[in-house]
């Protein structure tokens, strides 16, 4: 953790104000989010929980800049990203956010190293040359303990290994926020624990992580648990026993 990071430690990395998302028109209208105001600080590890239809997925999509709110405001790392256009949102996703999905979402028939390099390919601030890209991707794979699997294709990896490749890909552009959507949902409990240990380690190294899960045991790994219900925040509590 650098000195600079420590200084802005208490700055909110995510700040939302009255976020609302409405799908459909007229009588068929669904309020997926209904005025959500939320702050998440730098280096927090937050779990978002809630039954299906509670709005947690919609919240993740907006936090991940995959979708835009109908109304309200979303400030990510001091930049208002609420109503950016598609191209600007793509740039934010590339530079600021690392995604980890339930089903890994690696490119098929593509070696691990190339999968991890993918965000660098779409990077817009200063093109890295081929060698630098390789180095960065290699370092990210080393960080998740897969330095010996760089030429393996996704179908040759176990679920846990594939998810670690996905985490390496999320890390490669040094994002300010890691969004994990049910990261252990497709894994057996042993692999799941390994992945959670890895996320915990990343958190200890300074990453800000927001994770959606429906398993209480997994939510235990986070510092803070936010429960959604009917498009609103139901409860927002610190996990006393998980992290100091």
């Amino acid at each position, binding site marked *: 953790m650098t000195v600079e990071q420590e200084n802005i430690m208490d700055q909110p990395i995510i700040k939302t104000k009255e976020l609302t998302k409405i799908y459909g028109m007229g009588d068929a209208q669904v309020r997926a989010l209904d005025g959500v105001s939320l702050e998440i600080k730098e280096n927090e590890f937050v779990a978002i929980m809630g039954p299906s239809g509670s709005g947690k997925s919609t919240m993740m999509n907006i936090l991940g800049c*995959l979708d835009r709110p109908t109304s309200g405001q979303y400030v990510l790392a001091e930049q208002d990203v609420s109503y950016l256009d598609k191209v600007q949102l793509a740039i934010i*996703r*590339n530079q600021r956010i690392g995604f980890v999905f339930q089903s890994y979402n690696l*490119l098929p028939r593509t070696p691990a190293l190339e999968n991890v390099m993918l965000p660098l390919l*779409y990077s817009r601030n200063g093109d890295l040359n081929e060698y630098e890209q390789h180095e960065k991707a290699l370092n990210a794979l080393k960080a998740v303990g897969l330095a010996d699997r760089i030429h393996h294709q996704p179908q040759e990896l176990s679920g846990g290994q594939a998810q670690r490749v996905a985490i390496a890909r999320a890390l490669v552009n040094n994002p300010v926020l890691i969004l994990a959507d049910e990261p252990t949902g497709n894994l057996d409990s042993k692999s799941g624990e390994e992945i959670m240990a890895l996320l915990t380690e990343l958190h200890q190294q300074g990453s800000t992580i927001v994770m959606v899960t429906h398993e209480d045991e997994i939510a235990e790994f986070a510092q803070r648990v936010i429960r959604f219900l009917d498009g609103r925040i139901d409860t927002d509590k610190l996990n006393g026993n998980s992290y100091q």
Partner: protein
Amino acid sequence: MKLEKIIKIASQGLVRNKLRSLLTMLGVIIGVSAVIIMIAISAGTEAMISDQITSLGTNLVFVQANFSRGGFGGEANSGGLVYDDAFAIADGVSGVQAVVVEQQSSETVKAGNISLDSISILGTTEGFPSVRDMEIAEGRYFNQAEIDRNQKVVVLGSSLAEELFEDQPPVGQTVTIGTTKFTVIGVFEEKGLVGEVDYDARVYMPITVVFQKYTPSQFARIMGDRVRLIYVELEPDVVQGDVILQIELLLAKLHDVSLEEPDFIITTQQDLINTQEATTEAFRNLLAWVAAVSLLVGGIGIMNIMMVSVTERTREIGIRQSVGASPNDIRWQFLTEALLLSLVGGLIGVITGVGGSWLFGALGEMRTVVVPSSIMLAFSSAAAVGIFFGYYPADKAAQLDPIEALRHE
């Protein structure tokens, strides 16, 4: 994004689906090689026809009877060329090097126990071999004295000589044509087909014998012997138009017809070439359309596969969007894939097209000439097809919503 990166992303996509890429390219490969081969065939045919016409001899003018006016039994003194017209041209027109006359018939030819029906008999004069570029292989050609004395001598075409006499030497043998016996005095070298006529399957004899034995008529007794064709070979440096005008004036006077309504037609080699070119141009246009259609079908094939590819790779598109690919990045990726497919397909098509043209020429009787501009045309059409048919699927991919795309199974 840099061009280099776009090409890299697109080519990775294609290499990872080798079989599909190859099948997609197949349409373009076939289209492009079809364009090149079709144009090579028609260019080859044109070159062959123009060679054949030139091989009739050089600097020739053909005088033929115009049967559409007058004709047999029409006005008494017109509607045909006669033997004496040839002498009149030779004597009365300046700039003429040689005049050769042809008259044809068809008879049964027998030698020993071999009998061949409907063999073409060509009566002609002394200058024939030089005017028509024919060489004597064995024996000799007949001379003016034999023509004047109606000598029963013949020169045989090469394939006919072989059929009649097989391994024996034909010169000195006797053949029976119709009911008359002839002595074979020579055999021509092989000449092949010129236009529609097989020069090797004919009998050549003095024209006077043809008049006497095969085309006697009441008309001939009064007006002179009718001939089919008069060749006029010009001196090397004369102006063709001047000589043609002289011939026209002379024949109009002899036949007592006006120049506006002559009973003869004068054509030049250039006229023949022009006529042939008009026919082959229609042929070439037809081939070009067929080839263009196959290229179009190839393009539709690309669009088809790209559409399938976009649907099949929706998840991949979602992944790329989630890590920061903008709509333009996606559009360029798929458009470049389509373009690469058509360019690589075009390149392979050029190779198979040129190779195929060569093969057609080498194996078949066909002559082919690869036209460089056809390669450019085919290749650039392939590129245009790639862009045109690649744009819609690429745009569809670019418009995908990242959330929907990521959810796609």
